[in-house]
């Protein structure tokens, strides 16, 4: 047997197999299609073959990185979850995926990355805690800047800033999109009957983070909770295809307050000790260099020049 294909994606948390939207989409599709993948859960995107996550390393054809390209590749390898769909349903898939990307994705990115409270309290904290040193100082800010820049370009407003009005516009469009999805889903188990397809993977990938990650600014999550069939859809997929994740959540609501502080303690203490040591070392170095403190050495001529400096500084000290 040839080596299985390897998928590199972001680590999971909050009861999800991965915290990233694209990674969730790809993981869900792979489960639906029954593709045998060796999944590497990473917290450092540089360790993936292409530098971005998710990435699929194929057998002999290099690496593929965007979700749509990964799904196309899996289909070519005969792992096709859309085999039973009619041509019209395939066309509907394309249309609804466009709807998701245009209407829902900007609001999701806003709520996770651009909204100040959510970004600082949840997203940045998660990435700063989980990404290894020293990348954790650089990566969250870079991802934030990238997403803000993309939002500015797409809305053609270079001065775009997070604010009440922008939030309302984006959330309104997202609510409309979610309502349309809910109407299309109706009371069915999946979008096209009884077996899941690519569209189910995309919808799951976009809605699951919203459902599971507890955010301080909950407006978008409240919209989702008003649409029961979509909630049921996501929990269904999690229970059926990712049962192992549900049993081992790390950040759950009741313990989050304590859990967060506890996780911070070792870092905080270490940071305090390091900063005190650094400050003391800096002050000592300055003192020695300017001559406030002298080091008695065995060389007499050095001692004389130092004494002059000490006399000058002596007045200040007294």
């Amino acid at each position: 047997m040839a080596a299985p294909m390897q998928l590199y994606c972001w680590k999971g948390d909050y009861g999800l197999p991965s915290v990233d939207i694209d990674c969730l989409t790809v993981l869900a599709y792979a489960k639906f299609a029954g593709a045998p993948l060796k999944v590497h859960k990473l917290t450092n995107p540089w360790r993936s073959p292409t530098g971005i996550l998710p990435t699929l390393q194929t057998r002999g054809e290099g690496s593929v990185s965007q979700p749509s390209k990964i799904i196309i590749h899996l289909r070519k390898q005969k792992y096709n979850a859309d085999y039973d769909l009619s041509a019209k349903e395939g066309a509907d898939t394309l249309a609804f995926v466009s709807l998701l990307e245009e209407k829902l994705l900007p609001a999701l990115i806003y709520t996770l990355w651009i909204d100040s409270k959510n970004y600082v309290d949840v997203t940045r904290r998660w990435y700063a805690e989980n990404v290894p040193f020293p990348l954790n100082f650089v990566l969250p800010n870079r991802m934030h800047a990238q997403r803000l820049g993309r939002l500015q370009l797409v809305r053609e407003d270079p001065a775009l800033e997070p604010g009440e009005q922008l939030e309302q516009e984006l959330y309104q469009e997202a609510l409309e999109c979610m309502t349309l999805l809910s109407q299309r889903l109706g009371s069915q188990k999946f979008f096209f009957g009884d077996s899941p397809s690519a569209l189910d993977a995309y919808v799951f990938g976009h809605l699951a983070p919203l459902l599971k990650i507890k955010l301080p600014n909950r407006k978008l999550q409240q919209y989702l909770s008003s649409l029961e069939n979509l909630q049921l859809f996501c929990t269904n997929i999690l229970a059926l295809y990712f049962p192992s994740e549900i049993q081992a959540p790390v950040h759950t609501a009741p313990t989050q307050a304590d859990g967060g502080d506890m996780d911070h303690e070792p870092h905080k203490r270490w940071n305090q000790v390091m900063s005190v040591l650094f400050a003391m070392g800096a002050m000592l170095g300055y003192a020695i260099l300017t001559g406030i403190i002298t080091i008695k050495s065995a060389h007499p001529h050095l001692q004389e020049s130092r004494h002059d400096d000490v006399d000058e500084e002596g007045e200040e000290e007294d």
Partner: protein
Amino acid sequence: MSLAAEAFVSQIAAAEPWPQNATLYQPLRGNQVLMLSSVPQAYLRMCGLPVRVCCRANAEYMSPSGKVPFIHVGNQVVSELGPIVQFTKAKGHSLSDGLDDVQRAEMKAYMELVNNMLLTAELYIQWCDDTTASEITRQRYSSPYSWPLNHILAYQKQWEVRRKMNAIGWAGKGLEQVYEDVSQCCQALSQRLGTQPFFFNKQPTELDALVFGHLFTILTTRLTTDELSERIKSCSNLLSFCRRIEQTYFEEDKDSQSAGSQYSRGPSLF
């Protein structure tokens, strides 16, 4: 448009009926490479609302959101298909009232597909493909201006479009890939249309207007190669769809040679 402004506009719109002197502004004909004036025009004609077409060189600057074409109705100016549809709805004319919820969801989804794929592909081919950009697009875009403004504006627009393509991940796509995407989109539309006269059976909706506008523009505009129009023509039901709409809604303009109507001198599919 912000939500408050939209509500305000709808309120004012509802107050008066559709006037006779509504005007649609678009850039000069020879100027814009791929004109999309057909989209709101088709929609308004399907609603049975009269509108004159005016070509202005500075249409882009007159528009409230910077997008062309836009309509001037009464004392309001509305641009982009979404707001125009809402505006006409407030005046009591709507094409999608007869649809149920599932159909409306599908309509919105397909409109997003067209916007996402076709519109972006059109922009890509015009501005990111070097041959087309240098031979056709920049010339046409800068033709109403004198030197050196024409160069500056053309390059500025090109730079803006390329940045946007970068942001949404299309910069890495080659031209072949873009043509493939357009084919895929056309096939999806063709599947959805099937053998029906319109996308939602007997009545035209804004989706029909949008699809017609884009396809008509692509089919009638000359680019460096005919690859794009060939791909569309390979879906025969889309081609007959476009012809049918042109015949039904734009036929009367062919006979009249009135000065106000610019369309009669325009291109056609026949």
